[in-house]
Each structure stands twice: as structure tokens, then as C-alpha cells.
């Protein structure tokens, strides 16, 4: 009895044959769902995607700008540092040159001074020598004349006497000088 019932049910109900109302309901329901999805859900999600892309791109742009700014600042600082180094080297060089110049100047000055002193000494010696010579010249004249007078005043024929005269003259002269 069950067997016949089952076969009866099977001939009556074939699950492979679609029911027309179900197809129609299915199409309507899918159409409604499609409209809702196309009108609300897809645009909403796409908007979120677009916003996110924009936000990420904006963030990247911002970061790039910051990076460029930092690079520029770094380059500027490096240039400043190089300038400062250069300046320091220049000053050092200048100082060295100046030092050398001062040293040379001082040496030249000292040499000049020494030369001047030497020259002055030589001049003084020369002047004194000339003065001595001059006074000697005048004195030698008068002395010779005096000596000659004395010799003439005494007798010139006695050698002993004339030598005594000369000795006495020299002694007078020495005593006169002192």
C-alpha cells in the first residue's frame, strides 16, 4: 500500500518540472532585489571605495609633500654646513698667512734695526777717527814746530844734547796731556 502511494506521489510530483508561479515569483523577487542592490547598495559601497582611494591618495600626496619639504630643508642645512666649513678653512688660512706676514715683517724690522745700529756705529767710529786725525794733524804741526824751535834753541851739534831735548819734550808733552 505504501509502495503504491509512493509511486503515485512520484508520478504526481516531479521535482524537475518547474512550477510557473515559482518562476514568475522568482523573476519578480530577483528584479526587486536587483533594483535595490543597483540603487542603494552598489553605489554606497562604491562611494566607500572611492572615498577610501581618495583618502589614501591624499595621504600619499601629503606624505610626498612632507618628504620633499624635509629633503629641501636637509639640502639647505647641508649647504649651510658646507659654507660654514669653507668659511672656517678660509679664516684659518688667512690667519696663517697673516701670522707668516707678521713674522716676516718683524724679522725685516729687526734686521733693519740691526743694520741701522751697525751703520750708526760705523759712522760714529769713522767720525771719531776723522776728528782724531784732524786734531792730530793740527797738533802734529804745532808740536813739530815747537820741537823744531827747541832743537834749534839748543845746540844742534851735540847728539847727546839733542836726544835729551827730544826726551824732555816728550816728557813735557806727556805731562801737558795729563
Amino acid at each position, binding site marked *: 500500500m505504501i509502495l503504491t502511494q509512493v509511486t503515485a506521489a512520484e508520478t504526481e510530483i516531479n*521535482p524537475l518540472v*518547474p512550477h510557473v508561479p515559482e518562476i514568475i*515569483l522568482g523573476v519578480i523577487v530577483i528584479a526587486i*532585489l*536587483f533594483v535595490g542592490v543597483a540603487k542603494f*547598495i552598489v553605489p554606497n559601497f562604491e562611494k566607500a571605495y572611492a572615498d577610501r582611494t581618495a583618502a589614501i591618495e591624499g595621504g600619499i600626496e601629503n606624505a610626498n609633500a612632507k618628504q620633499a619639504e624635509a629633503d629641501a630643508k636637509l639640502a639647505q642645512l647641508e649647504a649651510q654646513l658646507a659654507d660654514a666649513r669653507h668659511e672656517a678653512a678660509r679664516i684659518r688660512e688667512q690667519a696663517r698667512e697673516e701670522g707668516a706676514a707678521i713674522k716676516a715683517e718683524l724679522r725685516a724690522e729687526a734686521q733693519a734695526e740691526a743694520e741701522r745700529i751697525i751703520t750708526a756705529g760705523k759712522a760714529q767710529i769713522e767720525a771719531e777717527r776723522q776728528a782724531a786725525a784732524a786734531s792730530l794733524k793740527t797738533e802734529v804741526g804745532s808740536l813739530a814746530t815747537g820741537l823744531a824751535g827747541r832743537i834749534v834753541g839748543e845746540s844742534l851739534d851735540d847728539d847727546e844734547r839733542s836726544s835729551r831735548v827730544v826726551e824732555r819734550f816728550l816728557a813735557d808733552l806727556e805731562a801737558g796731556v795729563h
Partner: protein
Amino acid sequence: MKSLAATVMASESGPHIPGPADFFLPPIIGSGEWAPTKIMLLVVLSVVIVLGFFYAASRKAAVVPGRLQFAGEYVYGMVRNSIARDIIGSQDYMRFVPYLFTVFTFILVNNFYGIIPLIQFPTMSHIGYTAALALITWLIYNVVGIAKHGFVGYLKLQTVPSGVSGPILIMMVPLEFLSNIIVRPFTLAIRLFATMFAGHLLLALFSLGGAWLLLHYAPTWQGVAAGLFAFLLGIMVSFLDILIMFLQAYVFTLLSAMYIAGAVADEH
């Protein structure tokens, strides 16, 4: 009414063997083909569920998504990127995303009805709904194909394989026409229907049979042992079924995308 009587009768002489009759529930109100059944209500409810969930998930469209939006975007991104864009190509996939998303979510919710307590009926085990889906997919890919290539150009694209010439075309063209134009909607509809039908049948068999063994089998201890084992198997089959429910929704959407991609492809 009839199936209920059959169930009552069967429990006395042996277990009720679930069959195709169990898939056709009596109308809630009225009678006849058009009277609303539980299945019809479930189909309508699925639209409310899908639209409600994804509207709530996408309403804010925040740059940094919350949990709900993240979940919604995950599903949407899967259909949009890994199905539509990867298969149709990045040029004109966007106009098919709404339809593919509709198909995926609609099938997914209707399949998951099969394991949700108290609902426990995969509406896609009625071939009418899978037929409706297959019909729409068939219309869409043929219409966009004809719109792009013209009627003759489209027929040539679908039926003349590239690199084939000469008399072999006499054999190839009808075969290609059959497989690309005629058979596709049937395979689409039957694949989804049959897997859901079989899955539900298996679950019904394990639970009804297990219950009968547990309660009515003569040497009680054997009946209890076998009944518990049947329930255990039933639970394992349920998990398998969950996987298949997802896979079938995915496969239907994927195939729809592939058919569309084939129809809008440039001539080879």
C-alpha cells in the same frame, strides 16, 4: 495534508522515507498553484534580509569601516573583485556587478535557509527559482552579446571556435550552439536545484530515520545506538551542506560571470 497523513501512517510500520513529496508543502492560505506557501514567503523574506543587511552595512560608506560595513564589504568585494573584475575584465565589469551581487546574495541566503533552525528549507531545492535565475542569466548574456557584436556576429562568436575551419565546422557549429546557447540555462538551473535538493533530502533522511530508530526500533539498545550514530552523521552532513550551500552560490555567480565574459569578449 496528504504528506502529514503519510508520515503518521509510516511511523507505525517503518520510518518515513523522505522523497520529492516532502519538498512540496501545503499552502498557508487558500489552495491551488498560486496560493502562498512557506517557500514563497521565504523567497520574499530573502529579499528583505539581503537588502536590509547590506543597506545597513553600506549606509555609512565610511572610509574606515565598522564591523558591519567590513562584513558587507567583504562579500561585496568578493563578488566585485574576485568574480566580476577578474573574469569579465576591468573594462566593463562594473555594469554587471549589481546583477552578480544580486545573484550571489540571493542564492546564498536562500541556500542557508536549509540549515537555519525552524526555517530548515533551502528554497533553491525548488527548480522554479533556480530556473528563474538561470533564465535571467541566459537573457542577460545573450542580450549583451547581441548588443555588442550584432546578431550574426554574436552567433559566430558563440558557435565558431577559433582556429577551426573547413568541413569540421559542420559538426562543431551545432555542438557549440547546443552547449553555449541551449544547454547552459538548464545546467545552471539543475546544478543548483539538484545539490540543494539532495542536501535537504540527506538531512531529512538522517534526522527522520535517526528519530525513528531512536524511538521505534524493536531491540531498543540497537535502535538507540543506530539512531545516535545517524544523528552524528546528520550533523557531519550538515557541515558539508553548509560548504555546498556557499559553493553553489559561488559557482552560479561565477558561471554567470563567465557566460557574460564570453558574450562580451572581443572576437578571436
